[in-house]
């Protein structure tokens, strides 16, 4: 497992980095509008209505953005939590923690891919 983790480290780190960079840039307005303003009724009612949401999301660019929005934060989260686990709990459990977290991110990314194809 240790060898395998070392092998995939560069790619994981790349995804993590993009999670921090692109993830943050996309999430700022996503969280603000979808997570807060819309539920509070502060945006026009039709803005995120099904028709419009689907039109935006199913556009090729929309699909790409949505995939980034799903996958990149997952990798950022998984990688950071792995580090947090090491810093708090030590290195011994890494052989379990890392595969679980990265597995979650990988599955989530695959599911995301499937979800945007389904749109």
């Amino acid at each position, binding site marked *: 497992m240790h060898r395998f983790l070392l092998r995939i480290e560069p790619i994981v780190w790349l995804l993590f980095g993009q*999670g*921090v*960079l692109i*993830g*943050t*840039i*996309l*999430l*700022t*307005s*996503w*969280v*603000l*509008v*979808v*997570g*807060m*303003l*819309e*539920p*509070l009724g502060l*945006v*026009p009612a*039709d*803005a*995120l209505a*099904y028709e*419009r*949401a*689907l039109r*935006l*999301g199913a556009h090729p660019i929309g699909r790409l953005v*949505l995939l980034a*929005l*799903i*996958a*990149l*934060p*997952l990798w*950022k*989260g*998984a*990688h*950071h*939590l792995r*580090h*947090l686990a090491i*810093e*708090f709990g*030590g*290195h011994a459990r890494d052989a379990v923690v890392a595969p679980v977290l990265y597995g*979650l*991110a990988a599955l*989530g990314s695959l*599911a*995301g891919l499937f*979800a*945007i194809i*389904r*749109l």
Partner: protein
Amino acid sequence: MSVPAHPQAMAPSRPGRTRTAPPQRPDQAPFGGRYRSHTLFGATGFVYLLLGLLALEAVWALGGGSASWSGFQASLASPFMIAIHAISFVSVIFVGVRFFRLFPKAQPPRLGPVRPPPAPVIIAALYAVWIGASVLFAAILAGGIL
């Protein structure tokens, strides 16, 4: 006061000729003083993981038709979820502010003949993109354009 570090931290592969006292972590680690910002940065991992999963749920719901999409939207309207998003929003801003400050110096001084611009320029550009993209994306989501 201090917490023990990993017993092998900075130990040579073959132990020295005399017994040593085990390594200790720096006094303030991992919560205090200089480590607070870093530990919080790491802890935003929870938030991002959650946001990634929520985004997945959103897209899944959208793909499931009108009813599932409305259901998803309704689930976001609970005070609990709104609070979660408020915390997330602060976290995301924190990640951006901390990371964009550290970003420029992590760039190699050159790639082949190409040299990155000076740090203040990179930071300014990052903020410009961050704010520009956020305004644009927010405008699209909120129905202002497209």
